[in-house]
């Protein structure tokens, strides 16, 4: 159970990355779940692919490409949510599919990075180096500071946007701040779990927290614990069975969500029978 982590430095780095990522994803994912931004967040996660591809083709840092793509995606969402005559979901869905397609076309048309497609889409959890760890730790600190400073506005906006605006909180500014946090998390996390799976780590632990918690702080704590457990067992499964590490971690997190969901439903049924 613990030997792979004691004997292998790459497993230790991967686990530490998993812990940092779990805390970061729990903080940001909690507000994604509370505000019902799962679809936009997923679109944002997938929308970084063309930026990553272009950066790889021109030899620029991947993170810069992912960052630029995220900002472009947020700007696109801003235009759509303020001017579109379509429902936001339809327009954002099309933007998401369009950017994902563009990313795949770019990757597949470039011999230089075609072989890297799998690692871009599904990440390289076991290839995490110390630079990645420092970046994750710095990102976590930044997220903690931003969320601590704006938690009241984020919370009231999640509860009721009209109430938040009537209380003088800048609803739209905090909406984009939250999208920025999601984008930042995606950018620093996609190297571990890939663009297709990064949102699973943002959503599944936080959604599990929402099922069992009756306070926001508890929800974040539960989400962090679920993320850490998923990282541990996901990496362990990857080590023993040769499964893709990022996918194994996300699979664990999603499995925990469904186990807790059914557990909560069963408990509610029992309680109802006894009332």
């Amino acid at each position, binding site marked *: 159970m613990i030997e792979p982590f004691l004997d292998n430095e790459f497993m230790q780095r991967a686990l530490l990355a998993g812990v940092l990522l779990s805390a970061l994803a729990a903080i940001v994912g909690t507000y994604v779940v509370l505000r*019902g931004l799962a679809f936009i967040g997923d679109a944002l996660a997938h929308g970084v692919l063309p930026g990553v591809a272009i950066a790889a083709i021109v030899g620029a840092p991947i993170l810069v490409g992912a960052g630029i793509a995220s900002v472009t995606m947020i700007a696109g969402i801003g235009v759509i949510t303020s001017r579109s005559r379509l429902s936001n979901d339809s327009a954002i869905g099309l933007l998401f599919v369009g950017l994902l397609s563009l990313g795949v076309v770019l990757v597949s048309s470039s011999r230089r990075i075609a072989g890297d497609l799998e690692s871009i889409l599904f990440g390289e959890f076991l290839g995490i180096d110390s630079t990645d760890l420092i970046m994750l730790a710095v990102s976590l600190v930044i997220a903690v500071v931003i969320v601590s400073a704006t938690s009241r506005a984020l919370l009231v906006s999640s509860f009721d946007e009209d109430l938040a605006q009537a209380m003088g909180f800048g609803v739209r500014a905090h909406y984009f701040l939250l999208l920025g946090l999601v984008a930042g998390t995606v950018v620093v996390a996609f190297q571990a779990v890939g663009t297709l799976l990064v949102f699973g780590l943002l959503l599944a632990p936080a959604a599990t927290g929402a099922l069992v918690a009756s306070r926001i702080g508890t929800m974040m704590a539960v989400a962090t614990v679920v993320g850490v457990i998923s990282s541990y067992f996901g990496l362990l499964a990857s080590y023993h069975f040769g499964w893709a590490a990022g996918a194994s971690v996300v699979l664990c997190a999603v499995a925990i969500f469904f186990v807790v969901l059914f557990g909560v439903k069963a408990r509610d049924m029992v309680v109802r029978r006894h009332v």
Partner: protein
Amino acid sequence: MTLDHAPKSSMIVCAHHLSVGYGTNVVVAGIDTDLVAGGSVALVGSNGSGKSTLLKTLAGLIPPIEGSAEILGRAVGETTAEVAYLGQYHRNALSLPMRVVDVVRMSRFDQRSRWRKRSRIDDELVDEAMRAMQIEDLALIPLRDLSGGQRQRVRLAQVLARRARLILLDEPTTGLDAPGRTAYLDAIAREKSRGAAVVIATHDVSEASTCDRILLLAGRIVADGPPGAVLTPENLLETFGIGLARVGDRLIVTEHMHNH
């Protein structure tokens, strides 16, 4: 700033040639009205008559299209700390893992700087509001586990805990049972006696009759005055498209307007 510490001004709301609506689409035009401290007015009309739109404009959620609306002598939206707003129910609220007491405390968030903890005054106002709506026993229950009527009481407690000088309520008695309705009416009477001005949007004429004044809306102001003077069969026919007449505490339909 809370009511107790605020400089008192008798004029709370003053609207002049006000047109409200969404974008360039005017819903109600030519509103000239005011509301003094301790007064209450009910905005009454059928669906789409503009009562919620006017309420949202006063809450600073949508800008006036024409004319001016001032709260305590300042443009709407500039006095948010002095205003409490109860809008229509937001679906997201149910999914939040929050206890009742946390939801009520939320309404004090803008009354202190981010890094300051809750004050004794915050706690007292929250406790008082929960007592007023008779939900002290529900304090530690998650909001999502409550019935619709109980949740409405929580939202009304949120409004009361703000200790605002202007209270704006959109369909405040939705889902309330008889004791809840009584608790709400008592609480509003206390707020008024403290000097708060109250504006209620409702389609319920009986509920509107509890206010000092009624503004009948049908895309414009049909009538503005005390309930006894405003609730005439002619005005109600123009407002709702059906003739209503008061018989004791009840309203009965007397005729239907065609082509309304």
